[in-house]
């Protein structure tokens, strides 16, 4: 200790500086040695070159820092990658429209089940009210969250409005219900044999749902028929046909005789007959006939109104059966 003191105190500045440098060099060499050990170990263990990539791919994935492009050097495009190709028809569809398209294209989902329902209904002439009922059930299912009974008329209207948007854009654009004042007696009868027809007190329009529409009571329906057709008319289905297969031949015969149905095809509610008739009468293709229907609301009503409960198909194809043939048979 004593010697150390002596030695240290006896050193001049240059000597101290030399010692300091020596220590520094030692430290740096230590650090180098440490690094060498580290690298050597990494090499021998085989993980030294792991984070290495060849310069070509490094260049490929270089981060781009330029205005107008993202870090991959791609131009930002709002609509890019937002189109899907339909596997069925191989059209490219905007992603937001893809699910609805697929539903229609592949024939899955609620819509097409409804189409299937309608096909069954049209093949089975007598089952008109059943298919109608099913359609209405579907609609109710769709709209059940709309809520309570007091909104019932507006429910009818919203459904109809939605339907008419897709099906017949301008036909009932102002109001969804049917304005009974514009109808002739024939149409009224046709209407009342197929539809609920209860007149809303708010809109003064007729309910276009099936005869067994849950929004209105049999009492209301009967009252409307008495009001529009006179006291002789009554609710057609009040005679016990409350089952799904309600339109028995005898019953419809009775109904028809009561309404003095003449069975002529041009005002029949049958889909194919009426569309054919309208094609003969008004034009050659559907759009034309639809246009003319728009001008002549009563005819459009005949072919279109029974289909209101059915879904959005391009061609208005109501679930109404081929009534004239039945009635011809009956008569």
């Amino acid at each position: 200790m004593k010697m150390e003191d002596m030695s240290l105190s006896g050193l001049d500045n240059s000597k101290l500086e030399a010692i300091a440098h020596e220590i520094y060099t030692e430290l740096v060499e230590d650090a180098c040695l440490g690094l060498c050990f580290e690298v050597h170990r990494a090499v021998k263990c085989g993980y030294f070159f792991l984070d290495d990539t060849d310069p070509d791919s490094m260049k490929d994935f270089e981060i781009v820092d330029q205005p107008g492009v993202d870090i991959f050097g791609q131009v930002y495009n709002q609509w890019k990658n937002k189109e899907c190709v339909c596997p069925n028809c191989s059209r490219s569809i905007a992603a937001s429209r893809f699910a609805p398209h697929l539903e229609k294209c592949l024939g899955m989902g609620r819509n097409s089940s409804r189409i299937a329902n309608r096909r069954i209904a049209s093949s089975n002439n007598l089952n008109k009210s059943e298919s109608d009922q099913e359609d209405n059930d579907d609609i109710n299912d769709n709209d059940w969250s709309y809520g309570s009974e007091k909104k019932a008329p507006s429910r009818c209207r919203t459904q109809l409005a939605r339907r008419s948007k897709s099906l017949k854009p301008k036909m009932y654009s102002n109001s969804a219900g049917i304005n009974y004042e514009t109808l002739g007696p024939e149409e009224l009868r046709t209407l009342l044999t197929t539809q609920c027809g209860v007149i809303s007190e708010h809109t003064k329009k007729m309910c276009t749902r099936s005869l067994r529409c849950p929004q209105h009571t049999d009492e209301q329906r009967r009252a409307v028929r008495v009001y529009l057709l006179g006291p002789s008319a009554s609710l057609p289905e009040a005679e016990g046909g409350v089952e799904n297969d309600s339109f028995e031949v005898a019953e419809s015969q009775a109904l028809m005789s009561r309404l003095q149905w003449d069975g002529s095809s041009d005002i029949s509610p049958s889909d194919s007959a009426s569309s054919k008739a309208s094609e003969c009468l008004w034009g050659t293709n559907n759009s034309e006939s639809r246009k003319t229907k728009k001008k002549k609301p009563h005819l459009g009503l005949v072919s279109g109104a029974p289909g209101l409960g059915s879904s959005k198909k391009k061609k208005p194809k109501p679930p109404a059966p081929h009534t004239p043939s039945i009635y011809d048979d009956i008569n």
Partner: protein
Amino acid sequence: MNKDAQMRATINQKLIETGERERLKELLRAKLIECGWKDQLKAHCKDVIKEKGLEHVTVDDLVAEITPKGRALVPDSVKKELLQRIRTFLAQHASL
């Protein structure tokens, strides 16, 4: 000469005893990583290893290649700071 060597040994012992040597080493390591010295040397290591072949590299090779470069690459600021700390240490212990 004998006295000089003895003195160096004494100083080294002091450095280790007080823990100053460890502190200085840690400081130097941190500074060198901070200024990129380590990355530079690693890149150099890669060259050396590729040159010699992955299997034939020894620690001695690496030390021989790396140390001179490492010494040269230390930034002046780091060098100055470290020397300053060593001087302070020496001054403290010289005055004892």
